[in-house]
């Protein structure tokens, strides 16, 4: 049983890690931290693999996103917006990431879940609907409303 668990997790490891990394990097723009976030998300998935395995990708994306938002919040709390500006990234991208983090936190819960899976995780509408136990039409509706609210803050930069 334990062997099967490890083999299954091992087989999914790199695709899940890439999905977690992509979501975290989009929010943080920091390779090292995004890799740490992805590794932590994978470790948490491993710890409860038997209940996570059948919806591992959305689960890992959500965990990575929440971890990344926590990192961003702690950074902002500790040092303000300047903390990311010292990193080797274009200023407009840094600002966009900070605005994206703030905008995601401000979204209503369901809209945020949909936006995270659809646009940070690049899941299809069907996969997002399955992950959240919603109809595809509901996903479209939440995605449209969520994007509309995000555009106001993210694309103005």
């Amino acid at each position, binding site marked *: 049983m334990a062997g099967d668990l490890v083999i299954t997790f091992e087989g999914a490891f790199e695709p899940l890690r890439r999905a977690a990394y992509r979501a975290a*990097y989009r929010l943080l723009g920091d390779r090292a931290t995004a890799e740490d976030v992805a590794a932590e998300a994978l470790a948490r998935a*491993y710890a*409860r693999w038997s*209940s996570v395995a059948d919806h591992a990708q959305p*689960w890992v994306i959500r965990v990575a996103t*929440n971890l990344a938002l926590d990192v961003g919040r702690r950074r902002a709390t500790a040092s303000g917006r300047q903390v990311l500006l010292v990193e080797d990234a274009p200023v407009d991208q840094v600002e*966009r990431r900070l605005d994206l983090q703030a905008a995601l936190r401000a979204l209503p*819960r369901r809209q945020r879940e949909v936006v995270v899976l659809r646009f940070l995780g690049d899941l299809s509408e069907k996969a997002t609907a399955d992950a959240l136990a919603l109809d595809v039409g509901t996903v479209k509706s939440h995605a449209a409303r969520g994007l509309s609210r*995000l555009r106001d803050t993210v694309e103005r930069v």
Partner: protein
Amino acid sequence: MISVLRDLDDPMPLADLGPAQRAAVVARGEHLRRRHRLQVIAVPVAVAAVVAAVAVALAADPGTARKDLPLPAAPSPSELVLGQEPTGPVGVGGCEDAAGDSVGEPDVDFFSLDRPSAPLFHYALVHGEMPSSGIVVFRIEAHSADGTRSREFVQRTVDGTVVEQYVRDPSTGARRDVPRDANPFGDPGDHGVGGAWFPPGSAGGLGDRWTWEASISVNGTMVDACTPTPAATP
């Protein structure tokens, strides 16, 4: 918008982890799993110890026992009878809470009671850190329009791990336990999200104009609560 997000992608390809780094991730996962197992064992033992201590104290000095102490050996509650699922509450599925209004950690920023299909869905998104230790209870109390019938939807976590979840009729004590496997989000301590499916008919008998309110308590103290209004409907 999507192109804007893709502009934020790492232009460098992500290399696969080497065996040692991958082993480190697995080792961390094993550590987390062992911790969860210990909690699953330790919590019932701790509860039993507290109950035994209370029973001993009551037996030793029953005259000074306070009325509000828990009974040392409560009878097993009867199983809640599920009814016809009502169609309400009308237009109210979510409750956005004001950030920063909590009297302690954690601060909840959203509760919802959704029914995409038959089962009820109890959900809480935590803004801030979950307590690393202690008992956290997410609770939704639903009431019929005339206030005569109620249901409690409860999820209890210890040190971030869900230890029980159930729906209960407070007037009779009848309850129905929900398997922890019914929690679609894992443990709230992992990523600030918690939720549970409840069986169809859990809100049976409340009528179509029932209302609900949500709260979170930490170690017996309510730290945050939220009552939905039509304006808060997502």
